[in-house]
Structure formats: structure tokens, C-alpha cells
């Protein structure tokens, strides 16, 4: 995991007992985690779980009520600006400059880091190429698609060649093609030895990209570890989804005989089983019910730990 192979090098981000409340309501309630150099670490949680507040604290944009943060070795918030000098950020909502072309966006952003124009101009074509925006340097922002803007934001976050990238829901709102392209680029950055912290509520994204994840709910870390390990430890290996008219009734009467756990939402029953064969044989005799048998995934872990109620 430690691809840089430097056990003595400081962790890119250490968070200890972080707490922050707004108006008496705890947004973050005692969170601790530590990134390893070169890994991709995912913060997962439903809306309002405290992901964005955690990131804001890490960047020194919000002063926590208590806790310690060290970002790229610097104490935050006291030395937050020095730390941000070596960090790249992709915010949740695009805040590219609509008045500028793609290249100007990068040039102006480089100045915020104190990078000389000549150095920035040398780097910009390379970054645009990396973002799949080669030849788009003079494109106005209004002419770029949502995916292109997202990639330009990623290129902007790399202008200072950061040690650590913080990505807040990097693929929210993108179509599948655009998401895959972002994932591919992030993997390339990991291959180059960058460390990434990302927040997401897409479980497939976390499973695909993250070496380790922490699931946050109501401001606390519910569990953390490698995605495959968490799936292996925390949940039954197989899921049989039963849906169609009468699925809820069927689950009420029969599911307990076959599944250790069964959750019903609307007209779908999710049966978590060690061995799916007896249940599938039983369901064969109930042709009015449709079934889907699949291995358990991170989403099942997530829903088990954070519940199925809506969070808005």
C-alpha cells in the first residue's frame, strides 16, 4: 500500500478527535483517521454526515471546536496556508472562472500559489492534455461540457504539483462515460505516487478507487478499513433481491427461514445469506416473484451501517 516506500515520511493527513458543532448540533463528533502516503482514502457517508465539514476543517477554512489536524505535516489551522501550498482541491461544486478560457483558468489559479507566469505557462499544456482537454486551451468555459469542466477543475487542482489531493464528490452529476474518465485519471495520479482523499456517496466509486475507506454517519466514523475486508467482515457474502407484487408479504412470511437478515423497502426484499441455494430453490417455485442473486458489495455494508432512511 505504501507505494512511496517511505515509512519515515510524515503522513499526508492526520486527523485526531476532530469535533465541530454548529448551533449546538454536532456536525463532526470525534473523528480520527490517518492517510498513508500514496493511498486513496475514501470518506463515505450520507448527506449531512459531516464529510464536507471534515474537509473544510482539514483545509483550515473552519476552526474546529477540538481536535488536532496535520495536513502535509503542518498544523492546521495555524499553518493552513503553508499546508494548502502543497495540496490540491477539487470542490463539490464547480467554481471555475466563467470569464476565462480553460488555459486562463489555470494561469490565474497558479498565481494564487505564487507560481510565476512563465512556469505556469510551461505546465498548462501538459495539464490540459492530462485532463483530456488538449487543444481546448482557448475554449471558453461556456463551451465545455460538465465532464470537461470537472476535468479542468482536476487539472487546476494539480497546478502546484500537490502531495495530496482532496476531492469532494468528484463525479457527482456526471454521466457514466465522464465518470470512468475521471476514475482513470485518478488511478493514473495514484500510480504517480499522489495521495488522494475523496468523499463520495457512490459505493462503486469507493470500491473501485479506494485502498481504504471510512464510513461516516452523524459526525462519527462507523467503521474503517479496506473495502473488500469490510465486505468480508461486516456482511453476509450473498444477497438475493426479491421484488414484484407480494414480495413484502413473502418476506414477512418466509424470509426468516432462509436468510439471516432480510430488509424490505417498498416492494423489494433484500435477503442477506451465507448460502443462497436453498432460498433460490424455494423462489423457483414462486414464479410471480422476480429475483436477483449477486455478491454482497460495499453498498450493502453502507446501508447496513447507516440504515435505509432518507437523508436530506
Amino acid at each position, binding site marked *: 500500500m505504501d507505494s512511496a516506500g517511505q515509512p519515515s515520511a510524515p503522513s499526508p493527513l492526520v486527523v485526531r478527535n476532530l469535533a465541530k458543532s454548529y448551533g449546538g448540533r454536532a456536525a463532526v463528533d470525534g473523528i480520527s483517521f490517518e492517510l498513508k502516503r500514496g493511498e486513496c482514502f475514501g470518506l463515505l457517508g450520507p448527506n449531512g454526515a459531516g464529510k464536507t465539514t471534515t474537509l473544510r476543517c482539514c483545509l483550515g*477554512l473552519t476552526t474546529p471546536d477540538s481536535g488536532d489536524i496535520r495536513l502535509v505535516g503542518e498544523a492546521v489551522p495555524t499553518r493552513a496556508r503553508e499546508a494548502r501550498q502543497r495540496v490540491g482541491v477539487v470542490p463539490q*461544486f464547480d467554481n471555475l*472562472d466563467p470569464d476565462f478560457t480553460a488555459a486562463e483558468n489555470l494561469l490565474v489559479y497558479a498565481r*494564487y500559489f505564487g507560481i510565476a507566469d512563465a512556469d505556469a505557462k510551461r505546465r498548462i499544456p501538459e495539464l490540459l492534455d492530462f485532463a483530456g482537454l488538449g487543444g481546448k486551451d482557448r475554449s471558453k468555459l461556456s463551451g465545455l461540457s460538465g465532464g470537461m469542466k470537472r476535468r479542468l477543475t482536476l487539472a487546476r487542482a494539480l497546478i*502546484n504539483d500537490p502531495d495530496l489531493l482532496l476531492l469532494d464528490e468528484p463525479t457527482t452529476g456526471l454521466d457514466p462515460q465522464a465518470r470512468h474518465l475521471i476514475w482513470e485519471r485518478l488511478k493514473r495520479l495514484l500510480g504517480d505516487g499522489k495521495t488522494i482523499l475523496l468523499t463520495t456517496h457512490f459505493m462503486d466509486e469507493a470500491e473501485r478507487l479506494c485502498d481504504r475507506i471510512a464510513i461516516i454517519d452523524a459526525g462519527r466514523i462507523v467503521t474503517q478499513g479496506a473495502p473488500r475486508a469490510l465486505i468480508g467482515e461486516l456482511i453476509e457474502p450473498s444477497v438475493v433481491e426479491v421484488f414484484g407484487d407480494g414480495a413484502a408479504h413473502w418476506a414477512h412470511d418466509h424470509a426468516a427461514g432462509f436468510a439471516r437478515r432480510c430488509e424490505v423497502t417498498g416492494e423489494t426484499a433484500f435477503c442477506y445469506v451465507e448460502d443462497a441455494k436453498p432460498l433460490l430453490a424455494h423462489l423457483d417455485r414462486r414464479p410471480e416473484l422476480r429475483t436477483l442473486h449477486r455478491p454482497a458489495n460495499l453498498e450493502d455494508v453502507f446501508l447496513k451501517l447507516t440504515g435505509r432512511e432518507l437523508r436530506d
Partner: protein
Amino acid sequence: MNALLALRWIAVWRRNFLVWRKLALPSVLGNLADPMIYMFGLGYGLGSLLPQVAGVPYISFLAAGTLCASTMNSASFEALYSAFSRMHVQKTWDAMLNAPVALEDVVAGEWIWAATKALFSGSAILLVVWALGLTESSQLLWVLPLIFLLGLCFSAMGLIVTTLAPSYDFFMFYFTLLITPMTLLSGVFFPLSQLPPPLQAVAQALPLTHAVALVRPLLLGELPPSPLLHVAVLATIALTAFAIALKLAQRRLLA
């Protein structure tokens, strides 16, 4: 590195300057049109009905007032509508804060930028006034730092309102309740002595009054009476308003 970080407000200023440069000509001409209409419309139209005002032709009297009022408007519009777009709508400030730029740099950059833009449009008006022979003063260059200072005043006051504003509609109150009355009470269109004494006292508390009191004599080729007092009032308002705007920005953005 700390010395370099201290200069990051310049990057914020340059960002705004680059946007302005793309639209510089229409921007300056647009800023010029409104004051010119007032100056010629009132100056020649109303002026033809008047004997001299304060010892000079009305249009010469009006030139300094128009210059100051339009500098005020230019700084106010930039610090209100444009800064609010960057802070709240486009989230440009958020992007800057994710880089090693402090909120102090962002607000200082915006403050000095809006004053710079006011200086640009004020200079354009001054050029027209000079080209038309409405002033023969040899002290015109003194006007430039003064309108920059006036720009700093109204830029900082505008930023206070911006950091409090829930939406663009909020700015209407500021213009209706503060800027418009100030334009009428500060000696822009007529001498302060025409006002009833209580209003004359109110006028002394308005920054525009002090700017007009400095700029008008300079355009007429005279030395302003008690210049240091007027400059001190403007500088105090500018610095105090900036400090307040910064506190409000911290409350709004760094919670």
C-alpha cells in the same frame, strides 16, 4: 515564504484586472456615458438658466461633482454587484480560499480592485473634462490619488453590504437609502450652503462631501481649504469600513 504569502492579494487583484481588460473599452465608455449625460444635460441645460454658481459657470462647478459622484458609483457597483457575483454566485472566493490565499487577501484584493476601477473611470471623466477645456487647472494630477482614496471609501462600504447581502435585491436599499441621498447632500449639484443648517451638519459626516470639497477647488485651479482634514476623514472611513467588511466576511465564509 511568509513575505510572499503576504502579497497574495495582488493575485486576487490581477484576476479582476484580467477580466476587466477583456472588456476594457466598452467598460470605460459605459462608465463614461452616464456622467457625461448628467454633466452636459444639467451643465448646459440647467446652467443656461443660471448666472454663475459659486463664482464659476455652472458646468465648471458641476464637473468636480460629477467626477466624484461617478467615482463613487463605479466603486460601489464593483464592490456590490460584481464582488457579490464572485463571492456568492460564481464561488470564485471559495476557489481562492482553497489555494494558499487568506480571506484577508481576497477582501483586500477586491477592495483595492474596486477602487482601481473607480480610478480608471474617474480618470476617463477627468480626461474629457480637460479635453473640453472645462478646467485650466495645473493641479489636475492631484485629483488622481484623491479619487483613488474616494474609491477605497466606497469600495469598503460596498463590501460591508455585500458580505451582509442575501441576494442582489438587497443592494437596492443601499442605493436608495444611502447613495442617492448622499449624491444630493454632498455638494455635487449645488453648493452645500444652499442646504438648511441641520442638513449641512449631516453632510459633514458623508464621505462624498469631503471628496467634493477637495476635488472642486483643484479643478478650479485653487488650493482646497484644510486638505489634510478631508483626506483624514476619507482615510478613516476607508480603513474602518474595510476592517468591518473583513470581520463580516470572516463570519460569513469561515464559519
